[in-house]
C-alpha cells in the first residue's frame, strides 16, 4: 500500500521523466502547469502516464482545479 508521501514522490518522478526535467527541480507544492510550462493537452499525457503507472482510472474531471503535485497525489491515493 502506497503512502501519500510515496505516491507524491512517484508522481514527481513520472512528471520529471515525461517532461524531461530534473527530479530535484520539482516540489510537491509546485504548480505543474507553470513549473513544467505545459498546457491542458500535455497534462492529459501526464494523466495517461499516471493511470498506466498506478494501474488506476482517474477521470479528468477529478483534476479540475488541481494544479499542484501534492493534490494530484491525493487524488491518485484515493483510487489505490
Amino acid at each position: 500500500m502506497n503512502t501519500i508521501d510515496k505516491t507524491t514522490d512517484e508522481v514527481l518522478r513520472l512528471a520529471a521523466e515525461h517532461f524531461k526535467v530534473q527530479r530535484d527541480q520539482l516540489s510537491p507544492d509546485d504548480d505543474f502547469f507553470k513549473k513544467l510550462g505545459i498546457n491542458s493537452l500535455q497534462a492529459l499525457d501526464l494523466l495517461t502516464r499516471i493511470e498506466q503507472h498506478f494501474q488506476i482510472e482517474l477521470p479528468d474531471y477529478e483534476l479540475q482545479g488541481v494544479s499542484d503535485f501534492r493534490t494530484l497525489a491525493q487524488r491518485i491515493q484515493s483510487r489505490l
Partner: protein
Amino acid sequence: MNIFQGETLSWHVLDGTIELTLDRAPCNEIGRATLIDLEKFIAALPALQREAHALIINSTRKEGFCAGADLRETYRVAQPLPKDERLAGLRDFLERIHHVMNTLDEAPLTTIAAVHGVTFGGGFELALACDLIVADKMTRFCFPELRLGLIPGFGGIPRLKRDLGNAVVRDLVLTGRSINATKAQSVGLVSQVTAEGDALRVARSTAAQLKKFDRGTAIAAKKFIKPIPYDELRREIELFCDLFMRPAVDAGLRKFAESTDALPYLP
C-alpha cells in the same frame, strides 16, 4: 488520383493499402477545409478501391489523431449570422460530414484507424466509422460535447451504441470523461494497443495480413457484421440542430473560442 496532397490531409496507395493522413495544426480539428478535403477523398474512393483492399487513417500531428470539430471556426462562422442562416449552415455541414462518415463506414475495404494522443469528439467519431481501431498506448478517447451543451454530432452515439454496451456509452457521453487506450481496449472499442509511436506500423502489419484473404469474402463479411445505423444517424442530426440553437451552447462555444489556452480541451 492515387496520390493527393491537400491543405489538411494527404493520401497515397501502397501495396494495396490506402493511407489517409491527417495533417492540420494544431490537432486536425475538423472545419470546412478538412471537410472539403475529406469530400475529395470520398469522391476518389471508388477509383482507389479498385487497387486497394484496406484503408488506414492516421495523423502526423504529435498532439494526436484528431481533436474533433473546429469549434473556434464554428463559433466564428455562426456567431454573426441570423438564427435561420446559422441553423441552415450547421445542417449543411452535418449532412456533408455524415455523408463522409457513412461512406467510410460502408466502404468495401477493411478500414483501420491508427490513433494516438487526443482522439476527441469528431476525431473519435472518425475512428468509430472505421472497422478496427489500433491505438498507441498514449491515446485518449473522449466525447466532451456535453461540456458545451451538445451531443456528439458526427455520428458518434449511434456508432458507439452499435459497438459497445449501453452502460459504457452512457459513461462516456454523460460524464464527458476521457479514457486511455487500455481502458478502451477493455471495453471492446480498441482492437490492438501498441507501444508509443507504433500504431501506424501495427496498422500496416494488420493491413498486410488482410491482403491474404479473398476480397469478395471480406466485403461480404463486413456487410454482414457491421450494420450502419442510418435511422439513428438521422435522428442525431435533428437532435444536434435542436440543441445547438440554445443560448447555453452559444455561451459554451464563446467560452471555448475565447479561451487563452492554445488547446482548451479540458474545461
